[in-house]
């Protein structure tokens, strides 16, 4: 049982302080030119992947609904934001909000019918929807079909990336620790029992799905405005699979696990850039080995955080 966490001002200030220090440090390194382009790109990828992994973890890990269409929502977000910023020349914040709303809407439209399905069927249906989103984007001339959109201005700066990561983690952690979160976890543990206890399982599944999709849309918007170019092919099944590997590796149902795995996988990807085939073989081996020997993922559903570091804060638990 998780004890109710009372608000502790000192601890809160320390935590905010740590975040501010990390933020200013990196900001200083970038503005002083100490981080070259290569590290900056990796940093951006890490931020985007953290958002993706944490949001997919809400769906796959906490709600226990295996979704393989996360890249589809990312695509919706990316395209929505680019239409706002590049086509209509509105400010970036409008693009981001549009991305979140569009992806959440897509999540709702897809979630309501498919979440009636269970397990394997849901996985295939979400995979199907992800692919349908991609095929549809390929056939819309307004967004240049398969060629994609080029020349997007680079608006995802470090403050945006960092801020988005913090907001994503805050929202999802608080959601999971709220009464909604307990309902969501009860769906994962035993859907029938949860339903008997009066939990409206469909409602909570859709809620988790929509929130997860929304943050995938956010990640898509950040991605589009960092890498200048988006095309439907970027958001194919492979991308969903990448995110899934992070979630599984980190532990289904552990936010800190998802963050650590997102960082680890991004760094690994960067290190193995010249050997794409080896990278994928390694992913596959990691996935199968983790599932066989540690099906709950490296972190299981434990969190690294206040409890683990409790002693640092003099917090006698």
């Amino acid at each position, binding site marked *: 049982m998780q004890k109710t966490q009372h608000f502790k001002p000192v601890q809160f200030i320390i935590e905010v302080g740590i975040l501010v220090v990390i933020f200013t440090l990196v900001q200083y390194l970038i503005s002083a030119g100490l981080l070259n382009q290569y590290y900056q790109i990796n940093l951006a990828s890490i931020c985007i992947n953290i958002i993706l992994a944490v949001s997919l973890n809400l769906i796959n890990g906490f709600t226990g609904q295996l979704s393989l269409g996360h890249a589809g929502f990312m695509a919706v977000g990316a395209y929505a934001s680019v239409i706002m910023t590049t086509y209509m020349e509105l400010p970036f914040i409008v693009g981001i909000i549009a991305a979140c709303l569009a992806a959440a809407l897509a999540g709702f439209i897809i979630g309501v019918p498919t979440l009636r399905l269970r397990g394997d069927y849901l996985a295939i*249906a979400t*995979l*199907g929807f992800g*692919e349908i989103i991609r095929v549809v984007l390929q056939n819309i001339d307004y967004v240049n079909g398969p060629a994609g959109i080029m020349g997007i201005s680079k608006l995802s700066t470090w403050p945006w990336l960092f801020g988005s990561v913090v907001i994503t983690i805050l929202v999802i952690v608080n959601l999971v620790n709220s009464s909604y979160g307990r309902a969501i976890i009860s769906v994962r543990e035993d859907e029938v029992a949860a339903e008997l206890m009066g939990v409206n399982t469909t409602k909570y599944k859709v809620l988790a799905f929509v929130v997860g999709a929304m943050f995938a849309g956010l990640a898509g918007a950040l991605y589009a405005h960092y890498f200048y170019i988006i095309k439907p092919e970027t958001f194919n099944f492979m991308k969903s699979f990448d995110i899934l590997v992070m979630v599984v590796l980190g532990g289904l149902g552990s936010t800190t696990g998802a963050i650590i795995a997102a960082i680890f996988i991004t760094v690994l990807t960067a290190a193995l850039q010249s050997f794409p085939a080896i990278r*994928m073989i390694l*992913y*596959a*081996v990691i996935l199968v080995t983790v*599932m*066989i020997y540690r099906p709950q993922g490296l972190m299981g559903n434990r969190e690294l955080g206040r409890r683990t570091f409790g002693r640092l804060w003099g917090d006698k638990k």
Partner: protein
Amino acid sequence: MVNGLSLGAIYALIALGYTMVYGIIMLINFAHGDILMVGAYIGFFSVVVLGTNIFVAMAIAMIACAVLGVVIEKVAYRPLRNSTRIAALITAIGVSFFLEYTTIFFLTPNQRVYPAEAFPVTNYDVMGITLSSKDIFVFISAVVLMVILQYIIKRTKTGKAMRAVSLDKEAAMLMGISVDKTISITFAIGSALAAAAGVMIGVYYNSINPLMGIIPGLKAFVAAVLGGIGIIPGAMVGGFLMGILETLVSGYGSSLYRDAVAFGVLIIILLIKPTGLFGKNTGEKV
């Protein structure tokens, strides 16, 4: 229409593998499409390197893939038989990527052209319809394989064991059936059928590549669901329906939407009748 039938025959063969594996261990074998790819490559090399004819190549591919299927089941799926279905599904995806990228690593991601001399194409004119020897080859070998499969399942002891295990694993075990052995045999047969389908796709489309298994695999899965997953005649009917539907869509509509149609069909079925055309409704037991 003729194209649709031969395409449908290929889908039906793949769908049979999905359905048999699902029926027996409740696992969507994501790696099935990749076994097909491996089969196509083995067929390719046996034609090019060993110089065999296409039927021998198909037999070699089937035997090799049967072994591969059994090995995959032993190494990756067996340790997970009692864990959650999500864990098993993720493992299956892992195995699928492992096969794809190992092939890319060793054989490069490039397309390879199936040797034309392995299968001379002639066109026959039957009552105003042009039949290519490819179509006839694909259709007839698929039907022969399906008849053999039906015979194994309905008339032999192994088939009886397979049906028993898929009905109730514990009861089958109590009756003295070796469940492990039966599951291995199921994987062997399913993989052999996939390999045959792989060689057929090679002959039919003339080119193969390491990622060729994904799309036919997914479509065949849709076919299996369409017919009612776990039900063998359902998979055959579903396969043929998918093939014909797809040919019609790319014939009359946009061929770009062809891949989306398969998934659209899947989602419609899952929403209207998740058990498929031939499925029975079974309530969930607690």
